Each structure stands twice: as structure tokens, then as C-alpha cells.
């Protein structure tokens, strides 16, 4: 009985264990790894796209996807740089509002017109990319308000603000997902949308809200990212969609939908962050890193598909 329980535990927490294993490996091979600076660095790096992972997790659980998140992030960054001349707060609001608006558009077009979200957000990605390039006139925009960097460079107990925001968002959304009616409806709809509708759940509304939340998070990520060096360009977010989707799947959330947690999504992005860190410490070129990212996405989506297929012929 105990052996069985232990075995189940290993399978359940396999990602966490992999993280620990890589952590131990890095600790042995590099003095630098376990320093406060490095750990904070890892978190700092993953915070921005990590916020987006939260939204993507909600979408994948409900059975949708959003490929435009990278472009939304760039959009939010650009808006915040453009509007900060009216004040830091205005810049922040501008970026976030932009994100919310695009998310809402994605949601409305997908649900009201009954189109596959993968295709709609693909088109939105290209469209928004163009908008961003148009706004920046293909240059890198520099922010004019010196105080803007405060949003990303402020530290609380030596922890950068973006990290704190990320962790707070993680906690808030996990609570919403697991314990609120809205959250439980996300699971229900992702599990069986027909049955959910039959029993009175507002399927369309929940879907639209999920897209909007993702837009909000992507916009926020863009704003905070811009705050790092107070610049924004169309080059932001190019590989974000791949990164975020990989993180969600890596954490153990299935593309089939209907189950998962924000904690799992967090594990996914933490693993990616540590792997990135490992590759940097081992001085692997960024070109190879991109190849590994692509390969990892393919690998993880194949494993997920195999698991789904196994259940089919029961």
C-alpha cells in the first residue's frame, strides 16, 4: 500500500522532482547557482511571461488557446511607453487597457462567430504585430518619463516588483480557479461544454472572460517588461506564444482541457526558467536554445497526445 502511494506521488509531482533534480545538478556544477542573486534573476526573467502563463492555463483548461499573447505583450509595452509622458500611471493604464481590449476582441470573435480560437488568434497575432510595428515606426521606442522604470526596478525586501506582482497574481488566480464559481465553471466547460450549457452555465460569457483576462495579463506583462529599460519595440514577444504554451503543457495541463491548476502552470514555467538558466550557465548559444525550445514544445505535445490516445479505446 505504501509503495503504491509513493509511486503515485512520484508520478503526480514529477515536474517538481525534475526541477529539484536540475537544481541539485546546477548547485553541484556551479557556485553561482544557489545565490540569492541568481535565484532572483531566474524569477525576474520568468515573471513577465509567467503572468501570461496564468491566462493561457485558464484558456487551455476551458479548451481554447491564444496565439496572439506575444503581440499583446508588445502592444501593451508600446502603449505604456507612448503614454507615459502623461504620467506613469497613465502609461500603465494605457498598456493594460490595450491588452484588455484585444483579449476582449479575441473572445468575442471566437465565441460569437463560433470560430476556432487557434485560427482567430493566429490572425490577431499578425494583425497586432503590424499595429505595433506601425506605432513604433519599426524603431525602438524610448520612454520619456524617467519614473517609469520604477515599476520594474523597485524592490521590496530586495525582490523586484515584477516578481512580487507575478507571485501575487499566481496566488489570486489559483484561488479563483479552484474555489470560485467562475473557476469551477471553467473546469466544467472545458470538461464538457455541451453538458455545461445544458445545465445552464453561461458558456460564452465564461470563455470571453478568460480571453479578456489573458489579454489583461499579457498587457500587464508588456507594461512591466517595458519598465525594465523603458523601451519597447516590435521585436518583443516573438517567441512568447511558444514559450507560454510549452510552459503550460510542461506543467502537466492537457490540451484536452477540463483539468489543471495555476500551480501546475507555475511548475512548468519554473522548469523552463531553470532550464534556461542552466543553458546560460553552461554557455549554450542562444541559437541552440531556440532549437531546444522548439524541440521541447514538439516533445511535450506528443507526450500529451499519446496520453489522450491511450484513454480512447478503454
Amino acid at each position, binding site marked *: 500500500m505504501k509503495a503504491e502511494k509513493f509511486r503515485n506521488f512520484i508520478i503526480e509531482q514529477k515536474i517538481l522532482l525534475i526541477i529539484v533534480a536540475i537544481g541539485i545538478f546546477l548547485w553541484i556544477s556551479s557556485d553561482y547557482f544557489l545565490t540569492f542573486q541568481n535565484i532572483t534573476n531566474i524569477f525576474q526573467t520568468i515573471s513577465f511571461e509567467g503572468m501570461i502563463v496564468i491566462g493561457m492555463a485558464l484558456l487551455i483548461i476551458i479548451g481554447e488557446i491564444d496565439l496572439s499573447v506575444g503581440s499583446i505583450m508588445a502592444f501593451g509595452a508600446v502603449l505604456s511607453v507612448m503614454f507615459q509622458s502623461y504620467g506613469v500611471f497613465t502609461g500603465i493604464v494605457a498598456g493594460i487597457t490595450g491588452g484588455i481590449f484585444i483579449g476582449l476582441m479575441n473572445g468575442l470573435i471566437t465565441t460569437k462567430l463560433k470560430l476556432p480560437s487557434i485560427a482567430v488568434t493566429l490572425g490577431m497575432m499578425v494583425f497586432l504585430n503590424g499595429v505595433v510595428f506601425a506605432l513604433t515606426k*519599426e524603431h525602438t521606442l524610448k520612454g520619456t518619463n524617467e519614473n517609469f522604470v520604477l515599476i520594474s526596478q523597485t524592490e521590496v525586501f530586495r525582490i523586484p516588483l515584477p516578481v512580487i506582482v507575478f507571485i501575487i497574481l499566481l496566488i489570486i488566480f489559483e484561488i479563483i480557479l479552484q474555489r470560485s464559481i467562475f473557476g469551477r465553471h471553467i473546469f466544467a466547460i472545458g470538461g464538457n461544454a455541451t453538458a455545461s450549457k445544458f445545465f445552464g452555465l453561461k458558456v460564452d460569457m465564461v470563455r470571453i472572460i478568460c480571453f479578456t483576462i489573458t489579454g489583461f495579463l499579457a498587457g500587464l506583462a508588456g507594461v512591466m517588461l517595458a519598465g525594465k529599460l523603458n523601451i519597447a519595440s516590435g521585436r518583443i514577444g516573438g517567441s512568447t506564444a511558444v514559450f507560454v504554451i510549452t510552459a503550460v503543457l510542461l506543467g502537466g495541463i492537457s490540451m484536452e482541457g477540463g483539468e489543471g491548476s495555476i500551480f501546475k502552470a507555475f511548475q512548468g514555467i519554473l522548469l523552463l526558467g531553470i532550464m534556461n538558466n542552466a543553458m546560460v550557465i553552461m554557455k549554450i548559444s542562444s541559437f541552440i536554445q531556440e532549437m531546444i525550445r522548439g524541440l521541447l514544445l*514538439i516533445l511535450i505535445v506528443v507526450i500529451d497526445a499519446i496520453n489522450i490516445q491511450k484513454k480512447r479505446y478503454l
Partner: protein
Amino acid sequence: MSKKGNKFTNILRDQSQLIILILLIVIFSITTPSFRTTGNFVNLLKQVTVIGVISCGMTIVVITGCLDLSVGSVFSLLNVVSISFQQSNNFLGIFIPLIMAVVIGFLNGFVITKFKVNSIIATLGSLSFYAGAALLYTNGAIIAGVTGTWYGFIGRGKLLGIPIHVYIFFIIAIIYQILLNNTTLGRKIKYVGTNTTAAEIAGIRSNRIRTIAFIISSVSVAIAVLIYSSRMTTGSPVTGAGFEFDAITAVVIGGTSLAGGKGSIFKTIIGVLLLAVIINALTLYNVPYAFQNIVKGFLIIVAIIIDIRVRRRIEG
């Protein structure tokens, strides 16, 4: 849906993209003098050949019900490989990219069909992989080729005032169209895209057919690389970035359905020309380059909305 339908309105609806294209050409010709010069038209055709060939390959994949997002990165990779051989052995510069294309297409197809993975996500992964590979191959730099390769005539030669590669584009398109409409392979492709279950029960191995489609797509990229590299003297490892969206836009606005089963190379050529005419007009009107993506993205969304067959079945 009326049973017989007015034959005329059916043709109208079916060829609406062609009509829009003709209308736009007429409108722009009237309003913008610089549009209707032969020089402009030839220029326009020149620009479409590379994307045009890639779009033809993409059409086959879309008809089987999939998408190939890797074509842009694969173009980057094959391009630098091809140019890197220009200095030493021209023949290898043609041969090796073709072999690589077959392998890449096979890998894409194999992973997607064997494991039943979503083609958009899988080829998104391929996109990253081959983009990184291209950068790795040149170590991030732009590599130098040579001027005057023996096959340079493809890119630079002219026949009757029209560049050779324009002829090549049309020949490729005709070959693909014949493949699609007049061969058993083409018919299998249509069956698989229309109803995969029925195709399987009729004895068609849909996995093989889809893999072949992906190979055709990658080989089309190799042919496009041939056209492109034959007139270039340098190669950048990021040239192909964004080509996948140009190709998908052309296919989708040309009228081939993303749901699979329906479509033709002819429609895609219309789509390619439509896109080129619109971009051309924008350029002539001095609209900044950045707006092109806005237009492309907008057109993709509009085309998807119009494509009724892609709509989800109503729940409950």
C-alpha cells in the same frame, strides 16, 4: 441552401475572389497612374513568385486539413545552406536543400500523423527549431555567396521580357493543380481533407497522405529557395521570417477552406495576386511597410469569418 441554386450566382460566389481581384486591378489602374505601367506589373509578378510557390505547397497541406507554420524558418535555413554552397559547388547548392526539404517535410508529417498532434502547435515548434538551426548554421551572420552562378539565370534571366522565375512559378502551379485534380494522389488528398474517417474506411492511409502533403510543402519551400538564392549574393539567416503568414494569408483569402477538403491552386494564385495587388497599392500610396501586417492579419480574420465551413457546430 437551395437545391439547384441559380447557376450564375453560384459561379459568382465561388469565384468571388477573382472578381474582387479584377475589380481592384481596374480601380487601382484608374486611380493610380503608376499602377498601370507594365514595369509595375512585372515588378509585382517578380515579388510574388517566391511566396507564390510556397503558397502552392501550403495549399496542399491546408486541403488535408492541416497548417504548416514552419515554412518561413525552413526557408531561412535552406536559403543559407544553398548560398553557402555557391562558393564551392553549385550543384550541391540545389541538391542538398532539396534533400533536407524532403526530410523536414517527412519529420513534420510523421510527428503530426503518428501521434495525432495539432499541426499548428507542432509546426510552431518546428518553426522555432529550424529558425534556431538557420542562425546556428551561419552563426548569426550574413553569409556571402557568389555572383554569376550557373543557375543564376533562374533568378535573373528573362524570356520575352518576363523573368524566368515567373514562368517557373506558373509551371509549378500548373503541375500542382494537375496533381490535385487529375491524379489519384490528388483525389486521395481531397478525400482525406473532406472526411478522414470515410477516407480510412475506403482504404486510404490518411497518415501517409498527410505526410506526403507536408513533404510537398517543404519541397515547395526548397524550390522557392532556388528561385530566391539564384539572384542573391548574400544570405541572411532570418530571411524567411513571416513567410508562413504570407502563405497562409494568400491561401485563405484565395478561398481555400481551413476546414480542409475544398480548395485549388488556382484559388491560391488569385489569393497571392490579390495580396500582392493590395500591398502594391499600399506602397504606391506611400503607406508604411508596417501596415502590411495589419492588412494581412485583418484579411486572415475576415477570410476565416467568411469561411462558414470552419464554424464550430452549435453546442447543445
